[in-house]
């Protein structure tokens, strides 16, 4: 267990190095940052000075080495739009993103598991059919359209929730529901299958033969066993959820990392984009690690090797 965690933590810098390298190379081939910094009225002297300052006169591998040495010291360069260090700007936006992702995750997980259990308990009845069909339709739903629909219904027609922005808890409802729909249908269907399989196990038959009530069987015997595949699936879905937050933030003008990143791409603000990619990947790696550790703690059958 300890070895496993230690090895995983050792791998984090390597993954981050690869990610940063990809982002760096991809964004450097997009064009000359000097033109964007200086605009069209620049003199050749100004261009030459800036080129040297940004080490653009060096070959690409050297540029990357210089960049990495700065990154290790926490310096991701200076943002073009805001004229201040990039990393603190990204970290400022991390709070709202975490808020959104946490809320979306809770809705998706608890909602998905409850609906999945409902399907399994009333298997092949109308409610099962309705919920599963809804889940399959949900898998086909473009979440950005769902967000727009929710705004139309709850903000424009009923006028009970704000259209976009942040501030009160009401602002969180529509974005987090939209985000949760990225992964909730999968949770519903997986929970349903897992529960239906578990109720045929022998220990459930035994429990029923002992005369335990159906509710007790469900929560003491079926739930702890059936929930495991759902929890390990959760780890796989964290990346998807965090990726989905980029789109959700754009729809609802949510001031998070994703919106900052998309905006910076259009502004060609390379330092911010790289810092944002870095933070997003670190978040995904850490959340996957947490899910894996959590899984091995609650289920001794899963041995971490």
């Amino acid at each position: 267990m300890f070895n496993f965690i230690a090895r995983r933590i050792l791998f984090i810098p390597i993954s981050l190095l690869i990610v940063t390298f990809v982002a760096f190379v991809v964004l450097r081939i997009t064009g000359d940052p000097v033109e964007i910094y200086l605009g069209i009225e620049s003199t050749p002297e100004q261009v030459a000075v800036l080129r040297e300052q940004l080490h653009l006169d060096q070959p690409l591998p050297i540029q990357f080495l210089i960049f990495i040495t700065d990154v290790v010291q926490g310096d991701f360069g200076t943002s073009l739009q805001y004229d201040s260090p990039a990393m603190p700007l990204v970290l400022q936006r991390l709070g709202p993103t975490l808020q959104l992702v946490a809320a979306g995750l809770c809705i998706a997980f608890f909602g998905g598991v409850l609906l999945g259990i409902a399907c399994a308990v009333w298997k092949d009845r109308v409610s099962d059919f309705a919920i599963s069909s809804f889940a399959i339709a949900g898998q086909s739903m473009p979440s950005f359209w769902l967000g727009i629909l929710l705004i139309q219904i709850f903000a424009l027609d009923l006028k009970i929730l704000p259209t976009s922005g942040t501030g009160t808890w009401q602002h969180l409802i529509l974005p987090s529901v939209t985000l949760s729909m990225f992964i909730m249908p999968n949770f519903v269907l997986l929970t349903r299958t897992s529960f239906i399989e578990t109720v045929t196990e022998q220990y459930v038959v035994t429990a029923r033969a002992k005369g335990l009530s159906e509710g007790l069987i469900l929560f003491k015997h079926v739930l702890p066993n059936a929930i495991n595949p759902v929890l390990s699936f959760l780890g796989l879905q964290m990346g998807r959820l965090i990726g989905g937050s980029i789109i959700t933030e754009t729809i609802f003008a949510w001031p998070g990392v994703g919106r900052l990143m998309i905006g910076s791409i259009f502004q060609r603000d390379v330092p911010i984009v790289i810092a944002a990619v870095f933070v997003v990947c670190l978040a995904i790696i850490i959340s996957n690690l947490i899910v894996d550790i959590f899984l091995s703690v609650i289920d001794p059958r899963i041995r971490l090797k």
Partner: protein
Amino acid sequence: MRGRLFGKNLKMGLGGGIVVAAVLTAIFADFIAPYDPYAQDLLARLKPPFWSEGGSLDHILGTDNYGRDMLSRLIHGSRISILVGFSSMLLSCVLGSVLGMLAGYKGGATEQAIMRFADAHLSFPEILLAVLIVAAIGGSALNLILVLGISGWMVYARVTFGMTRSLKERPFVEASVSHGAKDLFIIFRHIFPQMVPVLTVISTLQVAQMILQETALSFLGLGVPPPAATWGNMLAEGRDRMWVAPWIANLSGLAIIIVVWGVNMLGNGLREHLDPKSKELA
């Protein structure tokens, strides 16, 4: 299972029907569309669909902010989505299966290199990579196909890897080896055909994912740039006008969900037909 209420034949029929209709629409868009999707008619701006007040049968589904006919734009919009969806699926299927079979067949260092890379790539959100690359090289149908194709290979690699590893031990492979068959011959003549059913199912379901990703990138402004008629572009335009013209966003969203749902249905039906033992979610 749900089979009793919603059988596999119904699923395949319904889903397949929608997919065939969508593909035909995309191919014959020029003949079906009542108007030129790019022709602007500023006197007929923001006309609602015929069933709501102020709409007329001239423009059955209304017009957008420049007076372009919505129905024609939706019909032409299917082209990019279908093209990108199917082509990027093919690219990632070929890439992933070849790498997966190689890793499973060779084992050792090849396996470690390919599968660890797949694991690393799997933890990186597809949309993030796509956003980065499209931002760098710009949006065009070809770039979208390349980006989505490259970011989707891991599923195929994992499945073909597992299957190749177990197939490799089977007597018919052993027999072929003892006849002196070459590795590549064994892989393509004996191992690959075994995987066709599973790959068909995964590929079909992936087309749905690819279409969703393409429209998402278009929506973020990173797809084929406007004025091109793509469903994602139309949704993004509709978002800015949802107070006055909600039908622009809603009709585009509806087009996306119908096609993606059809593809998903077809995939689920195919899975029940070809691979009945597999779980609901792979």
